[in-house]
């Protein structure tokens, strides 16, 4: 009786195993087919023009150089705003964990984190684009709002994992509490924090909705922070819905570049996590 039961259990175990693997394969098929499709089609778009020319006039040949430039500027400005605010917020949350203000900030963080990015875009539009106009500033502000909760939550978690014994060592050397946080705790955990920052950057690199709301399309080169710039994610849409064959090829090319950028950021994040220092 017992033996039969055991056999039944091991059979059940095997079936479950097979089902889990099957589910995994089913989940991976679309992912790989998308990557494969983008790679095959995108690679045919790639040539020198693609990298050095800006958005072409209707029907003409061009590239995505201005979109790469614009994406880097937008992400860069968003990071300049979002990373310090995120880190400082994270420090505050970990150091004043019990504080009332911390509870409120955490609530905001969760709210921001869960908010559809287009709503964040709309917020940036009302607050900034209606004053300055469609601009890099408005777009970067929106993207910074997406980064802040990610960076601050990672920073808070990372700082909380720094052992109390390490902080005590610093304090016993006559270091003030704030010097301890900045020179010891942050340093001890900088890998985790940098990884969090890179993940936040990877996340905003592919955002399109908030860009559309705050900046719209722009087919030229960068012309100032109070003007729009081109953007890879938006270019994909612009090119893809056009009737021209050579533009559609550009859309695939842009998609490939965007995926490569995001993938590289993730790989760098992984390498940093593995390194000892």
């Amino acid at each position, binding site marked *: 009786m017992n033996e039969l039961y055991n056999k039944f259990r091991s059979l059940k175990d095997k079936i479950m195993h097979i089902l889990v693997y099957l589910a995994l394969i089913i989940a991976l098929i679309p992912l790989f087919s998308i990557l494969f499709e983008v790679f095959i089609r995108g690679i045919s778009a790639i040539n020198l023009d693609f990298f050095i020319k800006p958005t072409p006039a209707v029907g003409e040949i061009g590239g995505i150089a201005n979109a790469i430039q614009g994406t880097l500027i937008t992400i860069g400005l968003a990071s300049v705003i979002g990373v310090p605010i995120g880190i400082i917020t994270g420090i505050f949350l970990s150091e004043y964990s019990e504080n009332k203000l911390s509870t409120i900030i955490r609530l905001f963080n969760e709210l921001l984190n869960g908010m559809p990015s287009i709503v964040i875009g709309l917020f940036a539009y009302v607050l900034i684009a209606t004053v300055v106009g469609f601009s890099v500033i408005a777009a970067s502000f929106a993207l910074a709002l997406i980064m802040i909760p990610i960076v601050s939550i990672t920073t808070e978690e990372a700082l909380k994992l720094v052992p109390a014994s390490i902080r005590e060592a*610093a304090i016993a*050397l006559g270091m003030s509490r704030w010097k301890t946080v900045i020179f010891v705790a942050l340093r*001890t955990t900088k890998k985790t924090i940098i990884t969090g920052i890179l993940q936040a950057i990877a996340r905003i690199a592919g955002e399109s909705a908030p860009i559309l709301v705050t900046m719209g399309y722009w087919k030229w080169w960068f012309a100032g922070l109070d003007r729009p710039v081109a953007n890879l994610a938006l270019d994909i849409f612009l090119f893809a819905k056009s009737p021209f064959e050579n533009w559609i090829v550009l859309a695939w090319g842009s998609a490939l570049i965007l995926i490569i950028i995001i993938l590289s950021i993730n790989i760098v994040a992984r390498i940093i996590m593995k390194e000892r220092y």
Partner: protein
Amino acid sequence: MSAYKIEVENLNAWYDYKHILIDINMKIKERTVTAIMGPSGCGKTTFIRCLNRMHELVPKAKVSGKVIFNNLNIYDNNVDPTWIRRKIGMVFQKPNPFPMMSIYDNVAFGPKIHGIKKRSILDKIVKQSLEMAGLWEEVKDDLQKPASALSGGQQQRLCIARALALEPEVILMDEPTSHLDPISATKIEMLIRKLAENYTVVIVTHNMQQAARISDYVAFLYMGRLVEYGPTKEVFERPKNELTERYITGKIS
């Protein structure tokens, strides 16, 4: 100036409402090793943490009484606790080098933070401190290696070097050998004797033989009270208090 480096007067300490140390009076001579003994939970760690103002870092912790260091009460209102902690260094029970820093940086860190920038001066401090801690010969070619690559005993000596780099006058140690193998422990014991030539050392230990080997004075704490204090030899041979005798003979632990 009195011959005492530290004079503890009516020291009381609390964690929230828990009264841990009760009316402790104790005078510690300069350049001696004083061992603090007593059963687990009697307040040894709390006591030495009161000597460099680390106790107050615990939320709701309180202290009353005086700790006079070089004729200055460290609990006076105008005393900066970070200055006290530089003058009265501390080595912890578990070796705790800064994990993301090299051996060199671990030692240079204190002086750097307190304003020494010149590389040549830092180099000298690092070398002297590591020599003093008996670690120089073992690590002089690996100064840039991460501190976490050292053995436990080496890490503990690194922590001692790190404390020495600030040129303290007193060094507090909380069971510094309890996490180490016997050979590493012996090295640290010999080091402590050597340190007493230049520094005043206060060491918490559970190990009676260790206290007998390395200390000049022994203090015996029992449930937050100082029940016996005197020259090591006297206390071990003729304890005045019955509790001390029972502790020394292993009847209470």
